[in-house]
């Protein structure tokens, strides 16, 4: 019968018309990108050994770099490295060719720029300084290697301490706590309390690491409160 196919088509569109949309509302909802997705080509100068395999592998002359000789050495050092992304085919050949994972793709795919030269990425490694490598030999290392990030180091140290304190408290930690309360008995009460309550445990650990004075006060307050509730419970 003519018209049957038409009605069936109408049925299909109606069915999908009431379904939920399958599209992603892009700027608010980000697309899910697979792990291997190749967005933007990036360069990490720290690993670069200036071998030039990448430029040889590239089919489209995207990559180029400048070198300068290192005094007293056969090696060369990198002066600048240029990725001209407008010619990039994202073919992954350079990444496969690179022996030291200096080149890699990141998931950033919003590469459009207003001007042609903005898409050209130039990496200039920091200037090299001569340091005494011991034994009268001089070695060239990047400048920022000399100035280690103190703040980051401190933060890392603090985090490490915090983690250690947390594990200690979760396993009891009566000895540690004894420093902050008056009696051994109090320490036992506090240890029990902290073992039961994760929130308080975390707070205590943070205080012990950061501010010992405040930790003492809070610990005593905890003990007093706990004693009170225990007493209340017994009365009842």
């Amino acid at each position, binding site marked *: 019968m003519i018209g049957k196919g038409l009605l069936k*088509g109408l049925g299909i*569109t109606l069915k*999908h*018309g009431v379904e939920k*949309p*399958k599209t992603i*509302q892009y700027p608010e909802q980000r697309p899910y990108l697979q792990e291997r997705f190749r967005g933007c080509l990036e360069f990490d100068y720290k690993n670069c050994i200036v071998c030039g395999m990448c430029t040889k592998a590239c089919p489209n002359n995207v990559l180029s770099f400048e070198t300068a000789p290192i005094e007293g050495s056969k090696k060369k050092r990198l002066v600048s490295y240029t990725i001209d992304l407008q010619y990039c085919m994202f073919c992954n050949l350079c990444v496969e060719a690179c022996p030291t994972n200096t080149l890699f793709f990141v998931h950033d795919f919003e590469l459009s720029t207003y001007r042609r030269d903005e898409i050209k990425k130039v990496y200039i490694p920091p200037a090299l300084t001569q340091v005494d490598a011991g034994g009268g030999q001089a070695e060239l290392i990047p400048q920022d290697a000399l100035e280690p990030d103190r703040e980051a180091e401190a933060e890392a140290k603090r985090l490490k301490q915090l983690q250690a304190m947390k594990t200690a408290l979760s396993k009891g930690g009566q000895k540690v706590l004894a420093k902050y309360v008056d009696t051994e008995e109090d320490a036992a009460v506090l240890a029990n309390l902290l073992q039961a309550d994760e929130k308080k445990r975390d707070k205590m650990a943070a205080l012990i690491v950061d501010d010992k004075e405040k930790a003492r006060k809070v610990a005593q307050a905890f003990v007093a409160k706990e004693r009170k509730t225990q007493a209340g419970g017994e009365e009842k």
Partner: protein
Amino acid sequence: MEHLFTNIAQILTSWMVSLGLPPIWADLILLIGQWTIIVVIVTLNVIVLVWLERKISGFIQERLGPNRLGPFGAFQTIADAMKLLTKEDIIPSQADRWIFMTAPMLFIVIAVMLYAVLPLGQGMEVVDLNVGLFYFISLGSLSTICLLMAGWGSNNKWSLLGAMRSVAQMISYEIPLAFSLLGVVMLAGSLNLSEIVTAQNRYWFILLQPVAFLTYFIAATAELNRGPFDMPEAEQELTAGAYTEYTGMRWALFFLAEYTNLVAVSALAATLFFGGGQGPWLPSWLWIIIKTYLIMLVFMWMKWTFPRIRMDHLMSFSWKVLIPVSLANILITGLGIEFFRGMGW
């Protein structure tokens, strides 16, 4: 509620007469007022319709449709209209200037004129013409000329081809359109649209004339140049057919007129086959709006489902299927009326 608008009109007339205006002038001013309101409503309605069409196409295609500007993207069409208004008005150098420029204006004028006889509620037609239905059909035939003017004036082969197609199509489909309406006229015994509505007090004519409704619906789709019969536009074949060379507001006028025609044809279908403003609880003007919108939804649903029919199939479908069917429908209707009259109904 039912007589809200008619009462307002009456109050206005009597107020103007009390001011000392002769009644004929008062009527004239009221007429002008009614026309202005119709034009404003039609234009605003098109904004809603375009939004609705895009939303429906979005839902059918598992998208959201416009959703950025305003709640549910409702202001998107307004932004589009602003864009069209501010666009450069390009007239091709080889175009037939006057014809090119007047075609869209005439198209919209004819489209708006269709509303003169439509009863938009009980006693709510601008002109209560006793040959209202015939007025509708004959004015509809004029829009052919506008498309032909657009196609000819553009001086573009695609345009001319689109115009020729649309003329052939509209002339062929006017015949089944008129014939399918004849069945209704025979049942109602009048060409007056409000009388046809009154005649549907007992049954809606869709129950008595299902074949007529089907032929009317198909022929109306072709008359409206909507998918699957969008021959004159046919983006994929004729780039944009008769509208290829039009830009900015001139193009928007065509768009406006097409949607205006869509509303008019749907409202006519609601009037002739679905009892016009008849319905329980709600006032008649609200009922006709609801019915018109429901019919328009079906038109849109069809457009986003079907592929475009081929030109020669389109013509042979009209001449070989629709016209015989609608003629047979007239014959059967006539026989039925005589039969029931003989039975003493």
